[in-house]
């Protein structure tokens, strides 16, 4: 039997943290499965909620923006399809972001009673939103068939933008998850951020409408602009507006924030027990 030696000292977080994280991948899977199976327990409609929410949001958007405000979509693309693509990726990002931000506080009963790499909590909370995302994507496919819309090779880029959305949600969510442990204000703040984000990001409209505004170069600093536009662009066969410059901002900002927030999380995770 190989001996497994551990040294516990102040300020010395686990030397083999990342290896530990890998070793605990089964726990990650089980925690994810827990969140998924608990999600729709004791609801009559169950998984159907994953369909109902994006569908109604889309219908409202189509009604308000297309019929009332008479906004125009990108040429050659049905407006409902454009909106649903935006809603799909945005809902994925925002629920993942919300779940990650709350992951540590929601699991406080574990934090105080058992050791495991704390990063597992935010990681496992992504699963639920990913499942909802798949459902919503299925809805998109149905709608595309309805409109007889045929995507093309641009589809190859979809996984890239989805991954970028996860990384962005993780980068920002992780930061809030740490602060949330000490300041529960975050719990109040998050829905507010998500609500503002819905209008700030090009979901119900195309960012082409803003391309000639003087503040457009500031607008594309929002990392979600590049992700949403890019996702829509790859899903709708390159027919929608997509500015590669905005993608640059997304990648750069997400990368920097990810490194910073993982560092921040690692630095603070040993104090979670004392603050929670």
């Amino acid at each position, binding site marked *: 039997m190989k*001996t*497994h*030696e*551990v*040294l*516990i*000292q*102040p*300020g010395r977080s*686990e030397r083999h943290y990342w290896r530990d994280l890998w070793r605990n991948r*089964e*726990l990650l899977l*089980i*925690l994810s*499965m*827990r969140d998924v*199976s*608990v999600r729709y*327990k*004791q609801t009559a409609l169950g998984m159907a909620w994953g369909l109902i929410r994006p569908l109604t949001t889309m219908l409202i958007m189509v009604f308000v923006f297309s019929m009332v405000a008479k906004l125009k979509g990108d040429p050659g693309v049905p407006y409902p399809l454009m909106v649903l693509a935006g809603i799909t990726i945005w809902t994925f990002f925002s629920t993942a972001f919300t779940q990650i931000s709350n992951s540590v506080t929601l699991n406080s*009963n*574990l*934090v*105080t*009673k*058992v*050791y*495991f790499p704390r990063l597992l909590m935010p990681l496992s909370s992504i699963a639920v939103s990913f499942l909802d995302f798949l459902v919503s994507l299925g809805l998109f496919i149905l709608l595309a068939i309805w409109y007889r819309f045929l995507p093309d090779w641009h589809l190859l880029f979809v996984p890239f933008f989805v991954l970028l959305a996860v990384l962005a949600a993780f980068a920002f969510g992780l930061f809030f998850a740490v602060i949330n442990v*000490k*300041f*529960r*204000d975050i719990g109040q703040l998050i829905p507010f951020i998500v609500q503002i984000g819905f209008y700030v990001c090009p979901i119900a409209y195309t960012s082409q409408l803003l391309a000639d505004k003087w503040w457009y170069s500031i607008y594309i600093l929002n990392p979600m602009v590049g992700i949403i536009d890019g996702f829509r662009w790859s899903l709708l066969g390159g027919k929608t507006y997509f500015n590669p410059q905005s993608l640059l901002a997304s990648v750069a900002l997400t990368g920097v924030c990810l490194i910073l927030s993982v560092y921040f999380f690692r630095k603070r995770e*040993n*104090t979670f*027990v*004392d603050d929670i």
Partner: protein
Amino acid sequence: MSVITVENISKHYIIDHQKGKGVNTLRDVVSENFRQLFGNKKNQVTTTHEEFWALRDVSFSVEQGDRVGIVGHNGAGKSTLLKILSKIIEPTSGSVRIRGRVASLLEVGTGFHPELTGRENIFLNGSLLGMSRSEIRKQFDEIVAFAGVEKFLDTPVKRYSSGMYVRLGFAISAHLDPEIMIVDEVLAVGDAEFQKKSLGKMRDNSASGRTILFVSHNLTAVQALCNKSLYFEKGQLLEQGETNQVIATYLSKVSRTRLLREWDTPEQAPGNDLVRVKRIELIPEYQDELTHIDVRTPMKFRFEFWNMMDSANLNLSMHLNSLTGECIFNVGTKSQPYGPGVIAGECTIPGYFLNDGSYTISVMIVKDTVTPLFTMEESLTFDVEDYREGIAWYGKWPGYVRPQFPFHIGMLEEAVK
């Protein structure tokens, strides 16, 4: 070979009395910073910091195969020590070296999710405690049989009785296969029969060379299970050695009689934001101008607390324990709705009920008859002295209680001379 080496471990907390209302909010921090920026000195908030050493300079080592009991009062640092050894909290200074796979059992059914079924929770809890899925699958049937929940495997655990819940939780941890096992008070729950079974299981495990660290208030359990013991008091390790010797020291240092505890203001009183203890008192009705409690003495137990909730269904539950931590009885009041204010409960323990010995009283404030809001363990301690009349025998009267139930004796049939 020593498997655990603890060197000069300390854990230090700073309790902040100014903000001390639980969770900080951003507003508090922001407004305080503003006050410090613009406020003149008179306006400054006085913040008193209280230092608190949960553990101070603790060193010991544990040999492979030792079963170590950890005893001491509440707040002596036992749980802090276990949490440091389990890597849940970081020590402020010092170091610990552990050789071998550790499983910590600080709670029965850690991570159990009420909505999930028994089956799902076995996997969840097992992997939280460090078992792999294949290990769990291998032991699955045995776990289920040990817990005796075969019929309810696919029922959400929220529908389990508390006994089933505890049995399932313990069954999982009993089937862990670590080299070192850290156990905190888990035997305090569950019925007596199951406790015996669990204790037996733990002893079997240790026979196979496993090291066990065991915290318990139940000294009988510690004596039954552990060969070595550590005695903690106020964060310091007072004595270590053979279990019997350590427990003898512990019992001799236990402050004997404490019949009254009282707090003037809610701020100093033990409790939380919902309820705080005001006064706990045991009033003996001494007989024959006596000044001590003996087996004849009826006692009145009085408990007062502040309720801060607007309206809540509350009841009190009182546990009377032997000095070794075994509960002798538990009585509860009716649950009734109360608004904010001071609430008092009174219970009479009749004379000719308790046997001679030392006892402690714990009180629990319960909401809606299910949720314990606050538990004050070992709030009072008292001795009951022996008293006998017309009995020439002076040996120790056996049992925890010495009731005088009607017990008649008479000649049924006289023998014919």
